[in-house]
């Protein structure tokens, strides 16, 4: 009888303990959720941001994005120039190598080495050219989207 009472008490105690743990876990989860909600709430852009209203905040972000567009346009133009001058330089370098080979100024090995360098530069220029075209298209769409958004 005493034995059964002891076993029963133990199991009840264990259940109680696991219940306590569950409750603690539940409370912890709730706290985490509340913190996450708090974080999320602070990102609600539409609401007033300090002294700024949601619309003013939006206008500010819009101006920032427009500045980034200008920066990107500058980089695109700069890259365009690099591609143009690069193509010219590649053409000239190819001519120089051919002339040197024809005049017997350089060996075949040297010519191959130089051609390899030219090829590498050509690949990089072509890659940049493709990237510029892609970015120009993207930039156009991004510009349109930003201009469409009005606050």
């Amino acid at each position, binding site marked *: 009888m005493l034995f059964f009472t002891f076993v029963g008490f133990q199991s009840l105690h264990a259940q109680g303990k696991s219940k306590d743990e569950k409750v603690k876990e539940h409370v912890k989860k709730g706290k985490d959720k509340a913190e996450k909600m708090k974080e999320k709430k602070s990102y609600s852009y*539409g609401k007033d941001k300090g002294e700024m209203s*949601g619309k003013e905040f939006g206008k500010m972000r819009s101006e920032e994005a427009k500045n980034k567009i200008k920066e990107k346009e500058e*980089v695109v133009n700069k890259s365009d120039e690099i591609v143009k001058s690069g193509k010219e330089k*590649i053409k000239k370098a190819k001519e120089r190598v051919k002339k040197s080979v024809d005049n017997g100024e350089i060996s075949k090995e040297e010519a191959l080495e130089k051609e390899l360098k030219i090829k590498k*530069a050509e690949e990089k*220029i072509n890659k940049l050219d493709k*990237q510029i075209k892609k970015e120009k298209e993207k930039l156009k769409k*991004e510009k349109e989207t*930003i201009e469409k958004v009005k606050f």
Partner: protein
Amino acid sequence: MKKITILVVGLFIFFACSNEKKAEEKKVEVAIQKIDSISVDLKESTKKLDESAKEAMKAIEELDNI
């Protein structure tokens, strides 16, 4: 009765206004999120393009020695 009607109408107007304000806030929030996502993309793509341009520039400079 008149007072109750005024109160109900007042409450109705109040809730209508607050709903409108919430809808406006949501609209602004969506717009800002859209702009922010474009901004992030602009920053990343500009950085990538700049890196590629520098790489290409380096490769071209090497051609001067040929």
